[in-house]
Every structure is written in C-alpha cells, then in structure tokens.
C-alpha cells in the first residue's frame, strides 16, 4: 500500500515537474499520432494548467486545420495554366492503347 502511494506521489511530482520545454516537442507530435498513455496524460495535464503552452498548441492545430483546407481548395483551383486540346488528345490516345 505504501509502495503504491509512493508511486502515485512520484507520478504526480513528475507531472508538476514538467516544464514548458519538456512539453514542447509533444505538442506538435500529438497532432501527428497517439503518443503513449503516460506522457500523453502528463502533457494534457500540463496544457490544462499552462495557458501559454495551450496557446501554442492551438496555434499549431490552427495551422493544421488551415493546411487541410488549402489542400482541398487546390483541387478546385480556378487559376492556372489552361491546357491545349492537343494535350488532352495525347492522353486519350494513351488510354486507348491500354484498352
């Protein structure tokens, strides 16, 4: 029982010992993939207590969201070079050869 209590206290201490510098690399990495449970909880608790790191996380998340929208908009781009019918014909011919 004592050992469990000690472990719990050490875990809490490790959370409160986490600095903004310690959390920094995880803030971006968590936007890319799930990190293991313990460091994830430590980071989430730090973010809940630290508005500065929380702002940083929101900014990176905003950049991610905006980027996805830019990519989707580029699929419907109305601006850019027009291609000649000759080029289209060339591809149609290549497709016919595959049929």
């Amino acid at each position, binding site marked *: 029982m004592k050992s469990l209590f000690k472990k719990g206290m050490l875990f809490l201490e490790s959370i409160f010992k986490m600095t903004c510098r310690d959390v920094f690399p995880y803030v971006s990495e968590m936007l*890319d*993939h799930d990190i293991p449970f313990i460091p994830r909880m430590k980071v989430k608790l730090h973010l809940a207590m630290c508005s500065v790191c929380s702002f940083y996380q929101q900014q*990176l998340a905003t*950049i991610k969201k905006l980027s*996805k929208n830019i990519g989707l908009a580029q699929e419907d*781009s109305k601006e850019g070079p027009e291609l000649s019918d000759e080029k289209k014909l060339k591809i149609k011919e*290549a497709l016919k050869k595959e049929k």
Partner: protein
Amino acid sequence: MNQGLSEEDAEDWVDKYFTQMYRFALTRVKDQDVAEEVVQETFLAAWKSKESFSGRSTEKSWLFGILKHKILDYFRQVKKRGEIEFGDPGEWESAENLFQANGLWKTPPSSWGINPEEAAQNVQLLEALNQCVENLSDRFKSLFLLKEMDGLTADEICDQLEIKPANLWVMMHRIRSRLKTCLESNFEFSQSGLTK
C-alpha cells in the same frame, strides 16, 4: 467492384479533370512536363485499376487520391536521384533558444483570438499561410504538402521517402513552428479576431 466503366468514361475523366489535376500537380512538382507526365500516369493507373473504384468515393476524389500517390512516387524518385534528402532532420538550434534555463518560454506565445474553425473560413489567413508554405525550403515544402495538405499518412511518407518516424515528427514540428512565426510576422492577431 465496378466493371461498368466504359472507354467513354475514361475519356470523360480527361475532359472533366485534366486541367484541375494538372494545376494541382504543378503546385507540387513545379515543372510543367513532370506535372503533365504525373497526371497522364494517374489516368493510366486509374483505368488499369478501374475495378477498385467502388463508387463509395466520388470519381474526382478517387482520381485525386491516385494523383497524390503518384506525386509521392515522384518525390521518391527525386530522393533516389539524390536531389533532395528527406531523412535527415538536421539541427534545430532555435528550439533551445525559445526557453529559459528553468524551462519556461522566453517569449510566451499569446492567443491568436481565433479558433481553428473560424480561422479556416478566413480567406486572407489561408492566403497568408499558403504564401508562408511557398517560402519553405523545397524539402520542407514537399513534406508539408504531402502530409498536411494532401493528407497522405505518415506511414506512406516514411516508407516511400525512407524517413524514420521520429525524424518526421521533428521535421513537422520545425515546419509548423516556422509557419507560425511567418504568419505572426505577416498578420496581426488580436483577442477580438484576425485583422490584416
């Protein structure tokens, strides 16, 4: 399975999507001949695998999905030729410079006053970010486009470009950090929202 696609359907794809796909490819490979070639390869690959088009996605998203993988394959060849090295994250000295000895921020980030959903609707901000992406190095721009704009998975990118996942996370952080700095120098964010 969709075996109902006809030869006319394939020609119809070219008429409907060629220009859009070419423009999209050109923003990524930056060479007209390469962009044309990549799009042509996409149509040929789509025709050969027409049975895989299930109709669950739209024709357009299916074709663009193939195109994005052809663009990734182009960058794999670029890497193979030794023109760009994607695997090395390099040093990131500025990360250390961001913090004091006690682990606190030297210049603490402040709120942009706008949530991601609101920001995504702001045309000026989208344009500013796009310009910041253009200013990245070729290597970082390619990685960012493939992963964040084109939505390819980290596994696909790491596998094709021979990047260790841990190095990809570091590079993505560096890229996002640069884009954040670039946006903040081009726009004034305030508590009440975005102003140019």
